[in-house]
């Protein structure tokens, strides 16, 4: 048996950039991701203790040194942490919430994270997203579960326009939509000089 190898959904894609730092697109795989179902009053103390994050307001996210906590619904939150910490987080959270009416689910492998950074990030996203992504409409730490063309994902803005290389958006996208979304984003950014990636295709479909 060979040593375990984790492979991300976009292992076959290289980070892509448009000239002049207009845009960078890359995958950040293997973040620890834990879904927490429960009410904020129950989850709050545990998350503060385990991850050092406060409960976010609706449609916002909060951060600590190592973690980000995304609001997903009034009783659903997604905790992000560094690679390979999911089992430890799971244990710690389960311990902290033992007996409470909560659900704690490891979804680290369900999503991968696409990072879209640069002055053209908004315009690129707007080829796929119906959200109001103008700086007045979408701000740092804001969160939205939405569609990107035919892909589903969670969008969070992690840096604003003033930040170096910013603004930065991260999209959590499910495994099977990741290649589609990566290619759609490069396609949408063609005008800025982004090299276009074509979705994998060509499977034999005929007998």
């Amino acid at each position, binding site marked *: 048996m060979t040593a375990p190898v984790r492979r991300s959904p976009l292992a076959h894609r290289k980070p892509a950039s448009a000239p002049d730092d207009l845009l960078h697109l890359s995958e950040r795989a293997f973040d620890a991701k834990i879904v927490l179902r429960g009410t904020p009053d129950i989850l709050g103390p545990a998350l503060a203790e385990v991850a050092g994050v406060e409960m976010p307001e609706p449609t916002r996210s909060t951060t600590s040194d190592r973690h980000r906590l995304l609001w997903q619904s009034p009783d659903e939150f997604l905790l992000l942490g560094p690679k390979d910490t999911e089992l430890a987080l799971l244990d710690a959270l389960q311990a902290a919430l033992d007996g409470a009416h909560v659900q704690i689910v490891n979804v680290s492998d369900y999503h991968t994270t696409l990072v879209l950074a640069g002055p053209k990030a908004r315009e690129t996203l707007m080829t796929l997203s119906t959200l109001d992504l103008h700086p007045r409409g979408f701000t740092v730490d804001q969160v939205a579960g939405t569609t990107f063309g035919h892909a589903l994902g969670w969008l969070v803005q992690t840096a604003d326009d003033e930040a170096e290389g910013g603004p930065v958006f991260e999209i959590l996208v499910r495994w099977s939509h990741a290649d589609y979304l990566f290619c759609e984003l490069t396609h949408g950014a063609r005008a800025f000089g982004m090299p276009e990636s074509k979705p994998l*295709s*060509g499977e*034999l*479909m*005929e007998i």
Partner: protein
Amino acid sequence: MKRYSALELIRQGLTGHRGWDRVWRKPEPKESYDAVIIGGGGHGLATAYYLAKLHGMTNIAVIEKGWIGGGNSGRNTTIIRSNYLFDESAAIYNHALNLWKGLGQELNFNIMMSHRGVLNLAHDEGEMRQLKRRVEANRLNGVDSEWLDAKEVKNFCPSINISGDIRYPVLGGTLQRSGGVNRHDGVVWGYARAADAMGVDILQQTEVTGILTDSGQITGVETTRGTIRTPKVASVTAGHTSVMAKMLDIRLPVESHPLQALVSEPIKPVLNCVVMSNAVHVYCSQSDKGELVIGAGIDAQLSYTQRGNLDIIEHQMASLMELFPIFSRLRMMRQWGGIVDVCPDASPIITKTPVKGFYVNGGWGTGGWKATPGSGHVFADLIAKDEPNRIAAPFTMDRFVSGALVAEHGAAAVAH
């Protein structure tokens, strides 16, 4: 009624076309009728025509709130086929198809019935299985239907893309050669003219505002042009079936949704048949004028606005590009929406009701147009005899009590 013919056209052409009769009269409502049909669409007018022609009921009125043919009759993509799966549906739709065949001549009005063939495409194993099942069921029911593999599909319809590298490749399809398209206005006007000639009053711009009963028996209708006495009221108001039924506090298993369609600019002939695909959500034909007539999907929400959303159209056009990449540079010229009454089993309701003398014909979903003559024919029978005939019987309301649905939406494309 002056008969229409090429000779008459020439004769009139020489005298300035001043001798044509009115297609239908513009009568004042009578005080009473033997039956009142609410809804001057194809189904309503066909019902009136067959009531007059086959049952001798000529003292009847068709009441239309706007102009005849202005509802779904004037908004559909006129696809005619009868290749339905279940015996009950095959019977009524094939009955309609047989009536379509000679209808232009019968009505002395060219309805432009074009039996150019209807292709239903299969894009995965589940659909193949389902469509092959349908072909066999059709064949045994005497409905013309055959299975084509992908190459045969291409031979029949050369403009279609059967390449293997599209998202949902065409694996084959069914062909009903006797299926096709016709001219919706022609049908409506043809039935109206023929019914009118037999004495049927067509009351346009007349809205039914109430339905009158006495001890559970229909006695008349209130309209914007006064009260009309009648022992029988038949609602044939596709899109508004529930609204009519509500006047008598009757609830129906019907929901009304927007269904959109569009046409392209006219171009020279490029598509020779009707192509339908469920998996890719496209149906398309080319009109005699040269426009591509394209049906879009149903909007999910209930709505009576005859308006749908643009994203439905956008997805439809992307889908069309899968099957017909050569249509990409053509342009959408006009889009519109209708209201379809959808029943849980995607089959119609042709029924008596708890109110004696009140009959309902509706719930045809997206399948109404192709059934027009058959629907009118059996509904007339029901109204005249107060009993559904063999073809109509499976479509009464009883099935929503017993559970004997005619589930025509077909198998869900689910597999392990």
